């Protein structure tokens, strides 16, 4: 997404003096870059004076953090209870078969990333999918190809 070579140092400097800030710093890196790579983690370790192992311990524990670059359009399929009861598994299957990838993977062209997420809190609209922050409610498997086309279009222009 955005390439900033000294992101780790910058963020580390900002959060260094505050308490309980490692997770906040990692959030900030991921929000800029889309993931946290090895170099950022190294820089963060140096500037915040936290062992690198400790940073990876945290990075690998929490579902939210990504260690490799995700696709440009991140498709999050909600697997909360309401969405489960209303058949979001069928929507997920359709995404899988359309994109020919499994959950947690990206398409070879780097355009789509498919992931399952815990409740996004729009249970009234179940079943729900979120693509790059845009929410699609009352999903059916038939809507999947149109959504994919919509995002292909977005990144074609860019």
């Amino acid at each position: 997404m955005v390439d900033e070579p000294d992101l780790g140092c910058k963020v580390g400097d900002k959060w260094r003096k505050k308490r309980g800030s490692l997770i906040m710093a990692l959030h900030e890196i991921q929000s800029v870059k889309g993931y946290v790579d090895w170099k950022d983690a190294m820089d963060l370790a140096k500037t915040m004076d936290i062992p690198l192992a400790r940073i990876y311990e945290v990075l690998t524990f929490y579902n939210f953090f990504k260690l490799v670059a995700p696709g440009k359009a991140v498709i999050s399929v909600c697997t909360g209870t309401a969405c489960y009861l209303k058949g979001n598994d069928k929507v997920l299957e359709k995404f899988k078969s359309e994109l020919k990838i499994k959950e947690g993977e990206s398409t070879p062209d780097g355009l789509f990333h498919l992931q399952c997420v815990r409740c996004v809190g729009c249970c009234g609209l179940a079943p729900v999918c979120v693509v790059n922050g845009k929410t699609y409610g009352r999903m059916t498997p038939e809507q999947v190809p149109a959504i994919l086309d919509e995002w292909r279009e977005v990144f074609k222009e860019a």
Partner: protein
Amino acid sequence: MVDMAEILKKFDIYEIARKKLEEIEKYDCSIYCCHSTGCKSSGSDDLIALAKQILEENNLTDKVRIVATGCMGLCAQGPLIRVEIKGKKDILFKHVNSDIARAIMEKCVIPGLSSAGDVVLPDELKQHVLSLDMPFFTKQEKVVLKNAGHIDPEDIEEYMARGGYLALEKALKTMTPQEVVELIKKSGLRGRGGGGFSTGMKWELAAKVPTVDEKFIICNGDEGDPGAYMDRSILEGDPHAVIEGMMIAGYAIGATSGWFYIRAEYPLAVERLKKAIQECRKKLLLGNNIMGTGFSFNVDIRLGAGAFVCGEETALIHSIEGARGTPRPRPPYPTNKGLWDKPSCVNNVETLANVSKIMLKGADWFASFGTETSKGTKVFALTGQVKHSGLIEVPMGTTINEIVNEIGGGVPEGKTLKAIQTGGPSGGVIPAKYMDMPVCYEALKKVGSIMGSGGMIVIDDSSDMVSLAKFYLDFTVDESCGKCAPCRIGGKQMLLLLDKINRGRGKKKDLEQLKKIAFAMQKASLCGLGQTAPNPVLSTLRFYEEEYTNKLLDGKEKE
């Protein structure tokens, strides 16, 4: 010479509230647009922009105001818009799109401003009207959600105009910390995160620990249960109520600062809370010597990162400290040794949102709602196979029948109610035969479920209970932190057995084995996650054993 009286007036909450009320009074009409995550994702941003544009075109900006509010409750029918014209009946519109929004402005608001009597709506609008007299609205009792849907959550002055921060003033200026603790204790408020521990008792324990250098109050906003979004809606719709509750709690226990721990999956709630905190700082409600009383308090936000176990208080504390969110054995309880080993008191979002109301209206008023042991109201996220899915608030002790069939409008046509599920992955199912059971901490426990944080999922006869149990177990196995063996290994083994049964390969002895592992997990797991993870399996086994036996290889012989 600077006039001190003038400056102080600027920060006087009565003065701010009075001015705001005067300002609101000037408008003839208020249009409330729901602006919470649910309605926002259905496009309420565009509707607000469109309504504003139409107002400008018609030079009505000094007569009509548009308020972007928090959740109005009926999320499935969103986006929602409520029109309130002075002297006329309020009208609520559902499923609003840009055409309907334009029609609302041109055929309801504009004629309504000039004509006497109620507005006659054209047919195209009539089918979008939701009656405010339907049981979904009239059967509810709003205490915590009183402001959500009525104020702009990003405007502190609107909160003050509805009595905001008066409870804080009352506590700081007229009561000792002990008196605040006593009042909350007397009200019977219990933790709304699921545990149901008396909030007053918790505060008393925390207050007793001497403050050496620091003491913390922590707000647990790590709402992880799938199918629950009460805390998110409260934070989005009325963030100041939570901040005020936290400050009163801080005063009561002698805390030096407060921490909000919020799920990273709730960006809108975090953003609104951040803004609310900034507003408080500007109005000198946070910082040193608040309201000239010598009480100093500051708050900060820390985000979660997608770990369900962080809803457990010791895991949450580790997560704020910047470590893996793994629980540790208790005691020592956080009230003695919590965040950075300092005494800390952890309260849920909804619990804190109740506090200011109790302070203003008294313990007896609060205790007048509910049952003998469960006082006050509870917010539920009513979802699943139900007509009116949304956010509701009812007095404790309301029956399941009233909630599902009257407020929720029952299951959709052609289906019958099979059960409801409460407490998320830590709870259990309650079959339809218990429909007349009152919803309170004790009654739910008796039938093998728990109150939990407030997710209530309606299940119809098309759902298979074995798969449902597997769904929940799948969740807890995935979210187990792996620190203690009973939860890490037991959960996985139970899941394998369930899978085997679900594929039709199970035998009778597998059911026995399931129960044995479940028992061990309940007794030996370190934290609530492992102790309660078998609940969905045990409760479905208790009420729907035939669904399990029907799937067994040797199941039919049993009959």
